[in-house]
């Protein structure tokens, strides 16, 4: 996602959905530490206000420019 910082905040929910919930699951060590998860969820809590602001301003993240 080669997008601006604000767009990244909006997209963080989608990023977490995909990296932590999607992808091929291979039998191996998943080494996401508790600290990592905590940090991700702290970021998500911080995101709530950002999304509300983006919604008020009717901003849509730009698409199709990541290539």
């Amino acid at each position: 996602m080669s997008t601006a910082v604000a767009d990244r905040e909006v997209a963080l929910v989608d990023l977490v959905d995909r990296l932590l919930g999607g992808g091929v699951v291979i039998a191996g060590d998943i080494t996401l530490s508790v600290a990592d998860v905590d940090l991700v969820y702290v970021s998500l809590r911080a995101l709530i206000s950002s999304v509300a602001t983006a919604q008020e301003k009717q901003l849509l993240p730009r698409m199709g420019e990541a290539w």
Partner: protein
Amino acid sequence: MIRLIAITDDASMPPAPLHAVGCGRLTAICAPVDEHSGGADSLWRHEELVESLMETRDLLPVRFGTQLADDEAVAQAVGARGGQLAQRLELVRGAVELALRVDERGAAEPPLTGAATGTEYMQLQADRVRNGRMIHDELAALARETTMLPGPELLRAAYLVERSNVDAFVARVRKLQEANPELVLICTGPWPPYSFADEERA
């Protein structure tokens, strides 16, 4: 330990410090362990890596945080599921994933506060479901495959869209947003096909 990043059938060498591990017909792309892992930044770093690989090859992204002992362990683990993964690779070939979240404007407020009676509540609830369904159906017509994701919104979904169809998809999202000002549509991407890479999810 090494990190397993993606699975492809393109045998070209990835740029250092990545390396390729042959797994029969498939190739696994691996990376050194990320010493600075932690938080959203490491997720974005990982994402940028997968996106850069995806510019020149079709691939299945591997779940973030997957680490194996060495090349041999990678070849064994990927080889054991080779047939299934090759099928998945065909499904996503030439396509990217687009993410969509749809909610009512001001959804941070307690939902359905306008309902005075149980009947009105039921009616509003039915409208909510219908709105999400309508948006999904319109966009699904432009997608090769779709999947619903869990979330608190009216609709949280992923769409596998051919690269040549991405512009049309984005235009349809904009049109739906204009036609439904009471809703907020948040569409992001293109993403690697995370939500279509494994049967467990798709």
